[in-house]
């Protein structure tokens, strides 16, 4: 029986990134994935003939370009195409547009308020300054503030120096960013409801908080610090859907000699004398390995795969306390023709971007109130894209795939499990909102995939359906992610590592956790890190 150098549990994008780096460094790596498809939440599947969906994640920005280059993903077919802008439809029949062109963008904001239009530059500058501060932290292991090892001290000094580079005003702003609600933050710049509503979206996506909850300003930053080809804050579509990213990763992994087994659900991690020695699959098969890396979230890994007596009580308690509340749902729709939105000018570039119908922060907050009561939002905040307006590979010409992300959707319905009837009723809130702005919309629908937190948890394995494997609030970031003292991808079990979004720097299709974890594993092996180019400079 083979003893693998490493077994990676889960073929999500972070598991694959991790596996690629380890395999390239000379380890013999096996990836085991429970589903008969790979990709986790970065996946494209054809559920109805001729229509490819981005079933979970749908837009790309955070994925680190260093990783694309190191793992030769372009050679394996990856191409990310930036998109133009977006729009929020207003209830009075107008819309607010965001455009790629700086001045067109300003002019559209100026239709609502000249002051807000000009405030946008100040706002964008402040957000960009903060992103420039955070970006270099993404590909670095967070220091352990309680440790006196030279490298932790070195990292702490690095952090301290980064802080030192901030001016007094910037430092004040940084602290405010990490603690404020997105609503309060936007109030300091803008006066128009719809402008605030548009900008607040990034503060609540995937988060079990409302726009008025403290901490949501940071969530916004998390969505801004990505880039498409050096254009910071830009978002794009992966050609072929988000699955193109994990497909390219898998091809790269196999090309360097790695092995992937699908339909191989891990039941538990084998542990002998406090050391991980392999995994046991659901069908009882045992696979041996010198080390095990889990791409599953921190709760699934330590509360399901590892027997409680292998772990310190305080650790288990911290894992239980880690906030990983499901708050999002998604409806993927196959359309037999391009939907019309009469409020938009003909051929509006907004149709290639993100579309929304929530035109005030109050409506967003009310949508959140429903979630707190254990219900899906009656008037949800939708983040809609139609990637097929730019990507010709997912559907036949003239047909379209529409991705509708919905905030908020609870992990349990008023405390009980979701039923199919609930799921259909949830879908109806989404469809009816779209149909209000797009006549004839229902008639264009060919097929629909509806995903509540129940489906997201069951299919992707994200506990409670939390899309980021743990909320991105500041109490759960940096050296506190996922558990203080265990923020460096290691765990209380020797040879058992975490590499998923539960770890620093968090969720989104970013790849950084997978790469950082690989670096730590190779460090433990005293192996030179191969094919890992340094993080790009932020100059």
């Amino acid at each position, binding site marked *: 029986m083979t003893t693998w150098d490493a077994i990676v549990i889960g073929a999500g994008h972070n598991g694959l990134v991790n596996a690629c780096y380890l395999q390239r460094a000379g380890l013999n790596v096996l990836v085991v994935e429970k589903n008969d498809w790979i990709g986790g939440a970065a996946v494209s599947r054809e559920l109805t003939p001729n229509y490819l969906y981005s079933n979970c994640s749908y837009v790309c920005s955070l994925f680190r370009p260093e990783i694309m280059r190191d793992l030769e993903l372009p050679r394996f077919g990856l191409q990310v195409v930036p998109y133009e802008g977006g729009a929020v439809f207003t209830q009075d029949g107008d819309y607010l547009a965001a455009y790629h062109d700086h001045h067109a963008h300003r002019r559209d904001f100026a239709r609502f308020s000249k002051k807000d239009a000009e405030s946008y530059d100040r706002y964008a500058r402040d957000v960009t300054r903060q992103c420039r501060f955070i970006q270099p932290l993404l590909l670095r292991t967070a220091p352990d503030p309680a440790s006196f090892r030279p490298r932790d001290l070195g990292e702490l000094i690095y952090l301290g120096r980064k802080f030192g580079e901030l001016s007094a005003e910037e430092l004040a702003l940084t602290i405010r960013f990490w603690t404020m609600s997105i609503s309060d933050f936007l109030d300091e710049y803008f006066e128009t409801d719809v402008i605030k509503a548009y900008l607040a979206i990034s503060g609540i996506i995937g988060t079990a908080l409302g726009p008025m909850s403290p901490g949501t300003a940071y969530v916004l930053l998390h969505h801004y610090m990505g880039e498409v080809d050096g254009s910071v804050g830009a978002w794009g579509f992966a050609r072929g859907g988000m699955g193109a990213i994990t497909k390219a990763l898998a091809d790269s992994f196999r090309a360097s000699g790695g092995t992937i087994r699908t339909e191989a659900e891990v039941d538990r991690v084998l542990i002998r004398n406090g050391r991980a020695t392999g995994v046991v699959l659901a069908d009882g098969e045992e696979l041996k390995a010198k080390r095990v890396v889990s791409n599953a979230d921190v709760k699934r890994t330590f509360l399901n795969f590892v027997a409680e007596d292998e772990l310190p009580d305080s650790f288990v308690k911290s894992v239980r306390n880690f906030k990983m509340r499901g708050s999002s749902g998604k409806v993927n729709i196959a359309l037999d023709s391009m939907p019309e939105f009469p409020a938009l*000018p003909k051929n509006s570039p907004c149709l290639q971007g993100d579309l929304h119908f929530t035109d005030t922060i109050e409506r967003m907050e009310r949508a959140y109130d429903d979630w707190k009561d254990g219900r899906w939002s009656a008037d949800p905040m939708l983040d809609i894209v139609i990637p097929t307006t730019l990507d010709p590979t997912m559907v036949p010409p003239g047909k379209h795939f529409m991705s509708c992300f919905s905030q908020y959707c609870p992990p349990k319905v008023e405390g009980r499990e979701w039923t199919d009837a609930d799921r259909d009723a949830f879908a109806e809130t989404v469809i009816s909102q779209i149909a209000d702005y797009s006549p004839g919309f229902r008639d264009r629908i060919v097929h629909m995939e509806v995903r509540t937190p129940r489906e997201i948890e069951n299919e992707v394995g994200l506990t409670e359906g939390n899309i980021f494997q743990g909320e991105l609030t500041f109490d759960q970031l940096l050296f506190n992610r996922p558990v203080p003292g265990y923020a460096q991808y290691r765990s209380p079990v020797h040879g058992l590592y975490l590499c998923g979004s539960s770890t620093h720097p968090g969720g989104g299709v970013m790849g950084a956790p997978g790469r950082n974890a690989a670096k730590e594993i190779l460090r433990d092996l005293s192996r030179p890190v191969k094919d890992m180019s340094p993080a790009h400079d932020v100059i």
Partner: protein
Amino acid sequence: MGLMRPALLSVAERKAAQGHIHKIKFDTPFQPRLDALMQTHEWYDWAGYRAPHSLWSEELEYFAIRSQSALFDISPMVKYRIEGPDAEAFCNRLTLRDVTKLKPGRVHYTAWCDDSGHVLDDGTLFRLTETRFRLCCQERHLPWLLDGAFGFNVTICEETEEVSGLALQGPTTCALLKAAGFDGIETLKPFDIRDFAHQDGTVTVSRTGFTGDLGYELFIDTRRALSLWDRLWDAGGPYGLRAIGYAALNTARIEAGLIVANADFITAETALRADRARLPDEIGLDWMVDLKKGPFNGRRAIEAARRDGKARFVLVGLEIEGNVPADQAIVYHRKKREVGLVTAAIWSPTAKRNIALATLERPYGDSILNDLWVEIYALRELQYTRLMKRAKVVPKPFVKLARRTQTPPGDF
């Protein structure tokens, strides 16, 4: 208290403005005339407008400025109207110079700073009447102006699109305007403003410009703008009137030693890197700072910086050996130590010298003036020739023309 915030637009007005996206680069009202004259098809984006870089010949357009009359469309310049009983007090608090000394019918070149004394922009402040001002500048400042207006009885409106502008510059411009019916234009002194009749309204003419030459700037209600162009054009033939693009103007303004925001310095509100912001003393605007007047934005920080010697940079004029323009070149002391950067450089056709504007790190350019060098990488047929040329700090302007200030001006 007057109305401080511009009223929000109605749904109908908003919808009427939706179509802007069909034309990403806006036209100014003079576009039909520019389009007809455009031969090089060298457009550039000036604050979201399609503006000519050159129209027929960059080089010859420059000589229209220095030998005849040159017409340049300045409509994209950002304009704010500041009006009300407290307008003077507000402007005085906003800007560096003493606005109480600016009489109605006069304009001055000024700048304004944030609380750290960092320059937000430079521009011209027109005092149109006792209680009405117009601020013209490169960047946008409405939130800054409105926030600063708290407690002042003023109304502030952005009027960039409502007011169009033309710069008419060159030695024959006074004669041209006289011929076009601007009676009495010859009595206008530098920085004077006067209204003249045009059609059923007026055109506001100031004796200002960005060329260091004799010249005027004309501001007019956008609805009447095109006929103003025609009026000048019809009269302009005998005076050698030519339309010009930015390239020619840029040459003239460097000769005049004038700086451009976000080219020669980074404005405080656009700087992504906090250390890029500049005090007035660091960009050659120290002469504007009027400490004899009352409080103004940034005063305390500027005074403290002066007291503690915190001004780190100095903006200087350089004269450089040879004839290769030193665009973006690094400035060295003793050919070794990096001490600054050239932000604008040309071979001056009028001074016949190789000139540049540069920002140096003090004490270089301030107390240490000797042994300065610039490193020029001249790309010639796919090969760089690296030149290390001696640079001398010289006073600005590089070109000083008596006709700029002479009143009444001559006919050429």
